[in-house]
């Protein structure tokens, strides 16, 4: 069975200009969302207290709110989490109480109102821990980008490195844009997801770059845009199949993994979709415009210095 048996190369590069415009618009929209709305950072980053409880019956959120307000807890978010019985309560760090006391008191208040309440999870993060996470998260992002660029520059050429990293950041910024626009909660797990997408999406670009290089070496007379079109066409079936596989797993996490994995899986889902798009229609055109040619891919060194894989 075969889905893709494409005999003629698809002229991707002919549409490169319009796809790039689309990308640019999306990118700018994402940046705009981030600038105006920011990210809905979880308490891991901001510091605060989260209490997750479960009731025997469907919880009455309004009642929980009023009970907490009576206990002088203002500025509290109370929401259902997954099911109607599960409730997530978010509190800010308190002026005069230690965080430990707060979680204790909150539970007591809830117990007074309904003794069936069961504590599932308490999480308290001090403000300095959050700041550190925020910083190390940003640092991780930079380090990953630098490492990938360095590797691409070494294995291929600087033009590919630049094109690859632009495509990559494009994906990351768009994921962040989604999280910002819809105000989905940005947790530590989501950050891990975003960074995984960085690795994953560059993986994509590398497979295509690899083919471009191979065809350059093999078909010495083919012009650059046609070479890229050909590489994209022959790798397309692999691109689609691999992504379908990964997407199957990620969707299974999205639907069956529970709330904790939900946003992580969501980040990956978006990342994979844009990963395909960007490696085909962002990375390749950029490499082309940067002036990738047969000459700068063939080793200037003596033949045989780099063992050629293609006979």
């Amino acid at each position: 069975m075969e889905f893709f048996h494409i005999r003629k190369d698809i002229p991707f590069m002919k549409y490169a200009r319009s796809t790039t415009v689309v990308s640019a618009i999306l990118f700018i929209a994402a940046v705009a969302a981030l600038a105006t709305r920011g990210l809905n950072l979880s308490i891991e980053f901001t510091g605060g207290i989260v209490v997750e409880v479960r009731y025997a019956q469907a919880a009455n959120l309004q009642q929980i709110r009023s009970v907490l307000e009576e206990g002088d807890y203002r500025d509290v978010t109370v929401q259902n989490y997954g099911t109607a019985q599960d409730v997530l309560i978010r509190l800010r760090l308190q002026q005069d109480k230690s965080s430990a006391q707060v979680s204790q008191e909150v539970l007591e208040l809830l117990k007074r109102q309904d003794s069936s309440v069961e504590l599932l999870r308490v999480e308290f993060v001090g403000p300095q821990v959050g700041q550190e996470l925020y910083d190390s998260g940003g640092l991780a992002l930079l380090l990953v980008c630098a490492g990938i660029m360095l590797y691409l520059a070494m294995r291929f050429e600087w033009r590919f490195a630049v094109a690859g990293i632009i495509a990559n950041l494009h994906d990351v910024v768009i994921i962040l844009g989604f999280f910002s626009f819809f105000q989905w909660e940005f947790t530590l797990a989501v950050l891990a997801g975003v960074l995984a997408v960085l690795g994953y999406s560059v993986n994509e670009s590398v497979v295509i770059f690899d083919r471009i290089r191979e065809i350059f070496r093999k078909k010495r007379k083919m012009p650059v845009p046609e070479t890229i079109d050909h590489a994209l066409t022959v790798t397309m079936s692999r691109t689609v199949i691999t992504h379908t596989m990964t997407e199957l797993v990620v969707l299974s996490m999205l639907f069956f993994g529970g709330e904790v994995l939900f946003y992580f899986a969501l980040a990956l889902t978006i990342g994979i979709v844009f990963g395909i798009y960007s490696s085909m229609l962002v990375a390749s055109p950029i490499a082309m415009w940067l002036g990738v040619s047969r000459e700068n891919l063939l080793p200037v060194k003596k033949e045989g210095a780099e063992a050629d894989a293609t006979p």
Partner: protein
Amino acid sequence: MNRYPLWKNLLILAVMIFGFLYAIPNLYGEVPVVQISALRGASLGEAEKTRIEQVLKGANLGFLALEQESDRITLRFADTELQLKAQDQLIEALGEDYVVALNLVPATPKWMEDLNAAPMYLGLDLRGGVHFLMQVDMDAAVAQAEERYVSDLRSLLRDDKIRYLSISRASGGVEAKFRSTEDRAAAQERISREFPALLLNDSEADGAYYLVASLSDKEVLDAKNLALQQNVLTLRNRINELGVAEPVIQRQGSDRIVVQLPGVQDPARAKEILGATATLEFRMVDANGDLTAALAGKTPIGSRLYRERNGNPVLLERRIIVTGDQIIDAASGLDQQSGSPAVYVTLDSKGARQMLQTTKENIGKPMAVVFIENKSHTRMVDGAPVKETKTVEEVINVATIRDQFSKRFQITGLDSPTEARNLALLLRAGALAAPIEIIEERTVGPSLGAQNIERGFNSTLIGFAAIVLFMSFYYRVFGVIASVSLFSNLVLLVAILSMLQATLTLPGIAGIALTIGMAIDANVLIFERVREELRLGNSPQAAIHAGYERAWGTILDSNVTTLIAGFSLFLLGSGPVRGFAVVLCIGILTSMFSAVMISRSLVNLVYGGRKLSRLAI
């Protein structure tokens, strides 16, 4: 063509056997156990073993096995109900000298355990428990080091009869005030000889001569390190008293400590024990001092004003006879004469010597026990957290020394038996070198943990099944081979994680699931290549060969980039991100092996060495 040499097939077989062996312990699950360990001094030998067996027999509680190690006895039970009942019985029968803790241990067969095959350790998000991240107050650690120098310098100068006006902590170190330059010069010479690490600076103001001794950078660093180490040790001691099985107490970075207590469901109690910082000091009462003058603010030199619990003021000598860190054991009980709650204290040899000397010289005079507790909490001031440490110092007991004593003695004057027990516990566990503050706390209930495991496992399984279905359908025989190699990848990944004794967390499970998706990429790359080669009119055998050979470079390149991402995540991430990164990195490595070596060897076994007219791909 397309045949692997025998050694290569054997190697692959060996790797797979090894993989299964080390992955399988994860399937056995866990059995509830009760662990009994002895506290300081108590023995845990054959006699105790028989006693335990008798207790359980008497209560009609059957256990599956009893294992004795040097410092603890582990009893396995069929279910948690028996386990709980047994714990109650044993606590009652064995008394305070033993810790009886509940735990779950892997049900791995003995012969596997002997091969060091053990399941992965489950993180708190999967098994439930309490996690704390604690910050050690380093300023306080340095302040304490300076305090020590204050008393060291005082006794040094006093012993050498060098006159000084005062010695106290000041900004930048310890400040000594002298009447004359001669005194100061003598002191400077003496101090630099005795404590060469101190940096000395002199100055003059208002007719007095000052000498400021400050700690060198290295000494400050040493003081901080020491404080952190001692805090880790103290916390470990305290947690042992709590009776938590398999706790994690680790230093993190330069000033933090991570504490994880699996299975603990009462964070309040845990916090009480962990956060309590208490110590005792024994001082002589200054009987000659003028109490009224002291109350008016004129405390005699060499004394300090304290208050008893009922608020009565009392003047004590500044000199400390014995401090809490010289206490090696403490037990609560009742005073035989009065019947009131008491704590029996045992001192180390140095403390015993000091105590003996003091009591010998001071029979008939009153001595006081000062209880010191540090309480710290964070307050928000103008949106920024401000940490406040409050030290409570109170005299819990003043008693006349009736006779000389040294190593063992008792403290009375406590309000209740509970207080006596708590004090004994704190003294036994030792004092913290510097105050700690909980800056992060997570509690995960056991039901949530079980739910997390189930969901994580299910989503991985469903994803895996979907891939197997699709691959077998789309690539037929080759798809089946890819599925088998994908499964071996999973086995190898789990085996390596188990061998490394990595902690499996929910993000770790997510990492495994994601790796499954990504691992299939290598095989897709290869198969697509094979199809291309076939399309170009190459023979099936040549197509297989070329497919594997040519895809290899691409596989390597693409995986290395993902590895770079994973590795950076590991270096910089913490907690869940790190767990995810470990799984991702190992998963990529195992998938390169399984997707290339194992799948190739299977293809060779199926197709290799014979003439083929067509391929099922």
